[in-house]
C-alpha cells in the first residue's frame, strides 16, 4: 500500500477525485469529465504510467450516461490504474487523449463505432471493423440484437425423420429453438434467468419432466 502513496499525493491537486485502492496493484480513480485529461497527464508525466492498455465504454442507459474507463499501466510501479469518468449520453462527445497516448486512436475509433461516442481531436473517426453496418451502434443498450436478427434473417427448419419418430413416442426436444427465439411475452422479460424460470413452470411436455 505504501508503495502507491505517491499517486494519492500527485492527484491531490485535482478537484473531485476519488481514489480507491482495490488491491495491491489495482487502483480505481473516479474523476469528473472535465479533469480527466489532467489526471491522465499527471499520471503519465509524474507517476510513470506510460502505457494505455485500453479504453472501455459502459452504457448506463437508465442514468443517461456513458462511462469511459481508461486503463493505464506503469512498468515501474507494476500497477494498473483505471480512471473512470461519466459523460452525457445524449451529447456523446468527449475529448480525445491521442496527443497523450498514441494508441488511443485505435480504442477511440472502436468506441465510436460500437457506441457512437465522438472523440474530438482523434485523427481517424471513421468506420473500422463494421464496414457493412449502417444501423445504430450495435453495442448500445437501445439496440435489440434479437429483434434485429428476427427481422433480417430467415431460419432453417429442422424437422428430421428421427425426431418425428421420437415425438410420436412422447419424447422430443424440451425447448425448441423457435420458442427461445422471441416468442411474445417471453421476450419482454428482461433476463434469461427469468425466462428460464418461466420455461420451467410452463414446461409440461418433454423428456425432462
Amino acid at each position: 500500500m505504501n508503495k502507491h502513496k505517491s499517486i494519492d499525493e500527485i492527484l491531490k491537486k485535482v478537484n473531485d477525485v476519488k481514489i480507491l485502492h482495490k488491491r495491491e496493484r489495482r487502483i480505481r480513480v473516479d474523476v469528473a469529465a472535465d479533469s480527466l485529461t489532467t489526471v491522465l497527464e499527471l499520471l503519465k508525466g509524474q507517476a510513470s504510467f506510460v502505457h494505455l492498455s485500453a479504453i472501455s465504454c459502459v452504457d448506463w442507459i437508465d442514468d443517461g450516461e456513458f462511462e469511459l474507463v481508461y486503463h493505464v499501466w506503469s512498468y515501474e510501479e507494476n500497477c494498473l490504474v483505471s480512471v473512470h469518468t461519466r459523460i452525457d449520453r445524449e451529447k456523446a462527445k468527449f475529448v480525445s487523449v491521442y496527443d497523450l497516448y498514441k494508441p488511443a486512436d485505435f480504442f477511440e475509433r472502436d468506441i465510436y463505432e460500437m457506441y457512437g461516442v465522438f472523440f474530438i481531436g482523434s485523427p481517424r473517426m471513421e468506420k473500422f471493423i463494421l464496414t457493412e453496418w449502417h444501423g445504430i451502434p450495435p453495442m448500445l443498450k437501445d439496440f435489440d440484437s434479437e429483434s434485429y436478427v428476427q427481422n433480417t434473417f430467415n431460419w432453417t427448419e429442422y424437422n428430421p425423420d428421427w425426431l418425428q419418430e421420437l415425438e410420436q413416442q412422447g419424447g422430443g426436444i424440451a425447448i425448441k429453438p423457435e420458442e427461445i427465439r422471441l416468442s411474445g411475452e417471453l421476450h419482454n422479460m428482461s433476463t434469461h434467468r427469468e425466462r428460464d424460470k418461466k420455461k420451467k413452470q410452463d414446461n409440461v411436455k418433454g423428456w425432462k419432466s
Partner: protein
Amino acid sequence: MKKELKIKEKSTERTNPLARVFDDFISFCQSKSLFMLHYCTGCGAIELPPAMTSRFDMERLGIQPMVTPRQADILLITGYVSVKTLKRVILTYEQMQSPKYVIGICSCTVNGGMYWQSYATAKKLNEYLPVDVYIAGCMPRPEAVIEGLQRLKNNIKNDRKEQKGSAWKDYFRRYDYYLGNQQHLFGDDWQTPTDIIAEAKLYGLETEETYGKHTDQLLKIQKPLLPQEMKVRMKP
C-alpha cells in the same frame, strides 16, 4: 420452398446412345479428383488438419487442398459467416470455375449456431450460395467431415440419375433469388466483378428466374470494371 422451374434451358437430351456412357465416365472422373479450397472462417477449421493428414487422410478419396479459388472444385466453409466475410465468400465462389461445389461445415452455416443472436453473422448460407452438402455439428468430427465428402462424391458420380450433384447450376438458374438475398444484406449497390448473367448465357443455364427485379436493380447500378492504370514510378 422450391418452385418448379419453367426452364427454357437448352435441352440436354443426347441423341447419341454412347453420350450417356461418356457423361457417366466424366462425372466418375470428376468425383475422383476434387481440389478443395477451405475458407476457414470459424472454429470448425480445427477439424480439418486431422481430416487431411495421415490419421483420416482425405487424399485417399482424391481430395486435396488447393490454394486458389480458380483451381478449386470445392469451397469448404467452416464455421460462422459474418456479413463482412460473406461478401468475400461470394466473391471467392464466383471466381471458381464450374463445376463447383459448396460444403457448409458446423451448425453455424446451417442456422447461425451459437451466434444466432448476433447482428453480425449471416444465418442460412444456402440463401446466398447454393450449398451441396451441410455437415452439421459443433464441431463435426473428422469422421463426419469424411462422410460428408463421401456423400458429395457419390452425388457427383450419380448426378445424371439423381440430379443432386449440380447445385452450382442453381446459382445461374435462380440468380435473382440469390442476388435478392445478397442485396438485402449488402444494400442495393452491391456488385461483384463477375458477370453472372453473361455466364448463365454461356453455360446455357438461363431460365425465367435468372432475371427479376433484383437483377434489374443490378443492371441499373452496374459499372463496367476497367483495368487498373499501370503506373511506374521512375527515379530521376
